[in-house]
């Protein structure tokens, strides 16, 4: 309520008690108001008291009070009544003005209520009229002072500021000490202010501020400050406002608040933060207002779109008053400014500082943490930290920052706010991720575990469980001792996310890791759980294969085979089929191997051969065949063993394995003396690749085996092939020679002789021995013919023929002995000696002529002996030559032995030398007396 209204009511209250008979009370003339110069008026307090009293009186007799119109008519009548004393007329006019005011005020209220419009010019028209009549007619009356005052008010209400000011001035002129002086100055100041006459306004406000009543001073200073502000006289404005603020409890709170606001505004225009700092330095007594001023200054900067300065002002406030309640608001202001500035980095930097500024133990926390602001702070910091951490994290993910910063923020957040709220849970999850990205896997795993195990939140449970597994898996690569924890993580996943479709995959992975670590039994258990608990899933199908593998690694090969077959029956993924088939193969093979190791070779072979039947082309089948063959050999079933090896060769024809098998088989046959088998295998080996390295050796060996098998035709065929296919081989002569032997054995002597001749004629290194043998063979052919010639019939002719053949034979023997081979030489010499002995015997046993007389026969016998004995001498000569050659060369072979034997018979005195072996014939010891054995 304005002071003017109060004064008017007081006046009205005074009227209500006027002694006007039964009519409405007539406003009383103030005591002493009898036309004499007015005494100084009552104080405003007295006036208020009187006004209240009158108002109460009016309210207490409403029913008996006459209506205002009736009173006005009576007073008008009284005024116009001729006998009315002139001295009473000011009083009557004052009364009339008051009554009119009441009616017009009521009308105005109704107009405000929309009942009837009232133009400004019509407002208080009658009341103003009575007052104007009063001051016009009775300017010297005591009531004129009241009339001027009320006119000042009513003009003001009608918007007639100039007239209002003039009225107030009249009051001051008439009564400089009027109790309404301060109010009038104030009104005049406002009028001047509104009229833009700031200097005049300053004068009025200063009047009040300097000498007015205390209750007016604050307002006056406030107004004065405004004036100075508008005059851009900021120091004076600040000083005026400061006096308001420094006024202690004398200033109303709302005024102080408004003063703060306008002070901030002033400081804003005067120099902003610098001005504020200067002001506060100059006036330490208002330090308590510092936070609010910083806040307001920041707000003003913000409102005026001066965002950096706003940030600066807020930040300065926070720095200067870290424990101030306004800090939170300033921080919000900073955030708002940064938001508009789109300075995310700045905002985040600021948020990152909050834990230190407002966290537990900080000055701010000590001041407000336990109070209502604590929750506000928590909300602010929670959001700020969270956003900052997420921001830093995302930047780090883009390679624009250090992950460690985000980790620190996450950690701070979680230490402060925990992970039980939705936001905290999210932060904990992100924190785990950041740890993982930072390579701090140990902490990441633990963080993921905490997220997964969070009893309050479950949004990331499955993902955290899964990522924990991933992290531990990475760690376990370098540190196998973590396998137990990794396995536990898998188990936790399954426990925490039983309905997850990923459970089978996790179980499969768990099993795989255990299997890889060699913890086969445990992995088997996991796979079996998977297969039983999640049948029909692709992982269960894979688990079936793994189960088989586990059995295999545990040495349960029969179970492994069964499991692998079962897995194959479930339609495993295409990529696993070969491995499962292999597993079946190896399981069968291993069953055989185990039995083999126990010495149960026949039983072992059952599995090996089963494997061969089912998977004949597999590598294992090849080995199984080989092992089965070995077992059969160990069982003494060499021939069957060779058969298996030959089968192996057939199955893997052309391969190295086939070659090896055939070689081994041939050796078995050789050991058995089965030269036919040897030849067969080697021929097969040769046929596999006639151009292979070593093919010549194989063919030659095959031929020799045929030879030893007694298959002369086969031997001849192979040897002919050798001579044909390997013309440059140094063994061609040997092949021809041996072919000749074979053919000779077949009775094809002529062909044999041809081969011997070819062999003899074959040149080349390394062939001389065969050539020598061929020469011996040719000699033998001649000697055979030589022996067949019997000395009977035409003795001379027969003898010539025999001698011719002997000469031819000796020729070949000589050629043979001409080559430096001791065995050939000794044989040649032996055969030569033997031939001469035969010749001697043939001559001695030759047919005797029938027509000889006894004397002639005796003479004939003598001649025969004479001719025969030189032959024996020649034989002895060959033998002696032979043994000398043998002695010289240091050889001793059957031909040498034979020659020694012949010499012992032919020249016993020189060669028969019985040797004496020594046996040991020990006399046993004498038995001890009384010893056993009796």
């Amino acid at each position: 309520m304005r002071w003017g209204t109060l004064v008017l009511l007081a006046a009205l209250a005074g009227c209500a008690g006027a002694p006007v008979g039964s009519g409405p009370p007539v406003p009383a003339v103030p005591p002493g108001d009898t036309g004499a110069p007015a005494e100084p008026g009552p104080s405003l307090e007295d006036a208020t008291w009187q006004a209240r009293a009158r108002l109460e009186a009016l309210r207490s007799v409403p029913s008996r009070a006459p209506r205002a119109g009736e009173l006005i008519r009576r007073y008008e009548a009284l005024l116009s009544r001729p006998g009315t004393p002139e001295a009473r007329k000011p009083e009557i006019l004052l009364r009339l003005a008051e009554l009119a005011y009441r009616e017009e005020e009521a009308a105005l209220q109704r107009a405000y209520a929309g009942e009837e419009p009232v133009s400004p010019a019509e407002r208080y028209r009658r009341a103003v009229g009575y007052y104007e009549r009063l001051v016009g007619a009775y300017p010297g009356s005591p009531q004129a002072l009241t009339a001027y005052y009320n006119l000042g008010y009513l003009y003001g209400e009608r918007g007639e500021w100039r007239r209002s000011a003039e009225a107030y001035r009249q009051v001051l002129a008439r009564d400089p000490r009027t109790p309404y002086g301060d109010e009038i100055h104030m009104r005049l100041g406002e009028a001047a202010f509104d009229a833009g006459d700031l200097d005049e306004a300053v004068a009025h406000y200063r009047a009040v501020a300097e000498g007015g009543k205390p209750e007016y001073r604050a307002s006056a200073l406030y107004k004065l400050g405004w004036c100075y502000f508008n005059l851009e006289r900021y120091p004076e404005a600040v000083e005026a406002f400061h006096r308001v603020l420094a006024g202690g409890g004398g200033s109303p709170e709302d005024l102080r608040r408004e003063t703060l606001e306008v002070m901030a505004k002033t400081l804003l225009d005067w120099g902003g933060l610098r001005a504020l700092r200067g002001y506060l330095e100059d006036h330490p007594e208002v330090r308590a207002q510092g936070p609010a001023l910083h806040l307001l200054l920041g707000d003003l900067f913000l409102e005026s779109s001066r965002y950096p300065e706003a940030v600066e002002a807020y930040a300065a406030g926070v720095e200067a008053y870290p424990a101030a309640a306004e800090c939170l608001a300033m921080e919000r202001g900073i955030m708002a400014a940064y938001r508009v500035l789109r300075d995310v980095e700045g905002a985040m930097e600021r948020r990152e500082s909050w834990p230190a500024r407002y966290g537990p133990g900080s000055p701010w926390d000590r001041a407000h943490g336990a109070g209502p602001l604590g929750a506000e702070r928590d909300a602010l910091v929670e959001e700020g930290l969270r956003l900052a951490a997420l921001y830093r994290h995302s930047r780090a993910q883009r390679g624009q920052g250090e992950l460690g910063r985000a980790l620190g923020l996450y950690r701070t957040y979680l230490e402060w706010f925990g992970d039980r709220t939705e936001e905290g849970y999210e932060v904990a999850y992100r924190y785990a991720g950041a740890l993982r990205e930072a390579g701090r896997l140990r902490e990441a795993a633990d963080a993921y575990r905490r997220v997964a195990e969070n009893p309050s939140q479950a949004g990331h449970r499955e993902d955290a469980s899964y990522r924990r597994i991933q992290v531990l898996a990475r760690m376990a690569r370098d540190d196998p001792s973590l396998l137990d924890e990794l396995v536990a993580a898998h188990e936790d996943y399954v426990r925490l996310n039983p309905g997850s479709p990923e459970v089978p995959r996790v179980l499969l992975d768990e099993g795989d890791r255990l299997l890889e670590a060699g913890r086969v039994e445990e992995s088997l258990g996991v796979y079996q759980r998977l297969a039983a608990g999640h049948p029909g899933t692709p992982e269960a199908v894979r688990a079936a294969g793994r189960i088989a593998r586990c059995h295999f690694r545990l040495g349960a090969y029969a179970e492994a085979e069964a499991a692998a077959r079962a897995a194959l029956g479930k339609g495993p993924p295409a990529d696993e089929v070969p491995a499962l088939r292999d597993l079946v193969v190896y399981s069968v093979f291993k069953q055989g191997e185990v039995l083999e190791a126990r010495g149960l070779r026949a039983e072992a072979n059952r599995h090996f051969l089963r494997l061969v039947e089912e998977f004949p082309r597999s590598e294992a089948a090849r080995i199984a065949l080989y092992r089965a063959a070995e077992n059969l050999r160990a069982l003494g079933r060499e021939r069957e063993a060779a058969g298996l090896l030959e089968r192996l060769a057939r199955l893997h024809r052309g391969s190295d394995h086939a070659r090896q098998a055939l070689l081994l088989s041939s050796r078995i046959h050789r050991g058995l003396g089965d030269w036919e088998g040897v030849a067969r295998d080697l021929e097969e080996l040769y046929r596999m690749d006639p151009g292979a390295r070593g093919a010549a050796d194989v063919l030659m060996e095959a031929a020799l085996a045929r030879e030893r098998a007694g298959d002369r035709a086969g031997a001849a065929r192979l040897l002919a092939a050798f001579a044909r296919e390997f013309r440059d081989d140094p063994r061609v002569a040997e092949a021809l020679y041996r072919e000749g032997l074979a053919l000779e054995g077949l009775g094809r002597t002529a062909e044999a002789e041809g081969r011997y001749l070819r062999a003899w004629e074959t040149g080349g290194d390394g062939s001389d021995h065969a050539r020598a043998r061929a020469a011996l063979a040719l000699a033998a052919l001649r000697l055979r013919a030589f022996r067949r010639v019997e000395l009977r019939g035409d003795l001379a002719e027969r003898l010539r023929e025999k001698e011719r053949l002997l000469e031819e034979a000796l020729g070949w023997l000589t050629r043979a002995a001409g080559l430096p081979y001791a065995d050939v030489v000794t044989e040649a010499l032996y055969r030569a000696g033997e031939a001469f002995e035969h010749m001697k015997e043939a001559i001695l046993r030759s047919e005797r002529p029938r027509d000889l007389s006894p004397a002639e026969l005796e003479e004939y016998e003598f001649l025969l002996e004479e001719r025969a004995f030189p032959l024996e001498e020649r034989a002895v000569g060959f033998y002696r030559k032979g043994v000398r050659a043998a002695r010289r060369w240091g050889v001793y072979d059957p031909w040498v032995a034979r020659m020694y034997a012949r010499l012992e018979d032919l020249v016993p005195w020189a060669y028969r030398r019985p040797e004496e072996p020594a046996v040991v014939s020990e006399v046993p010891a004498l038995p001890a007396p009384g010893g056993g054995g009796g």
Partner: protein
Amino acid sequence: MMRPGIALLVLACLAVAGCGGRAAAPRGPEPPRPLLGEATRPALPAERLGEARAALARGEYARAADAAREARALNPSLVEAWRVEARARQALGDPAGSLEAWERVISLSGGDPEAFRAYAALAAGLGRAEQARARLREVRPDGPPSPALAATLGWLALRTGRPGEARELLEAVWASGEAGRYAALVGRARLLAGDPAGAAAAADRAVEARPRDPAGWTLRGDAARARGLLAAARSDYERALAIDPGHYPALVNLAVTHLDQGDLERAEARFRRAAEVRPGRPEAWNDLGLVLRSRGRFREARDAYLRALEVDPSFAPALRNLGICLEKYLGDADRAVEAYRRYLELRPGDPEVPRWIKAAARRKEEAR
């Protein structure tokens, strides 16, 4: 460690104790003083003999020998004293002293199985088998010898190269019911006397009586080999070697059997093993030479013969074989002749070797 104070106290006590009238502390337990009159009585031979027996039983052979010597010095006809002394000296490694004592036992008592056996064995070991044979033949000049004496004489006859005499003596033992104990000896005598069948029977009895004695199996093998039963012989030798893998006679004779069968390789291996087991015996080296010669390794054969002669220069078979090897196979007539001559020194009655010497000289001429 004793503290100085206590040590001084102890020394003081000892000093006080030393003042008790005794000159010095006793050094050991003193023998009980003899009673009056006993100390002058001379020791009895029986007592000394008892001491000797006790010492022998305790293995104190020197003490036993001394006591026995004292006993028989007191009473030279105390046979048991001589016996104990003989045993003790044998144990002490004094075969000559032992032999002498046993001879006295036999002289005084007429002999017993132990004395005969010990006496004969010691004499043979000392190269006095002939002496022993002569001495023992004097024991019972008028009557047939006891089985023990006959067996000992038979054994000595075998050792001195009298298989006929040995057989005669041992056949008597065989007939006396001591066949089992002396079967091996009898068998060897029969074999050396040219009765392989009888030897085989005795050998059977020997292996029956002592199946773990390799000598019995070797004898049986020798008998079989002498009868041409080479497979059986080989089996018996292998039984002997199964019992004692280093049994030299079985090794050599088995190798000779292999040689007879033309199994030169096995024969060589066995001979080499035998030579390794008993490098001081010539038989294995000689026979190894034969194997090597048969395999045409003449120089190695020559070396083997030389090795046999190195071991035993008087081993005639090696000299003969060496000469043959040199002459016939190595063409070294001079050295062959030298070997033949040495051989003839050992076996001057050999009818063939002188002709070989001539032949060698002739071939040498022919070669020129």
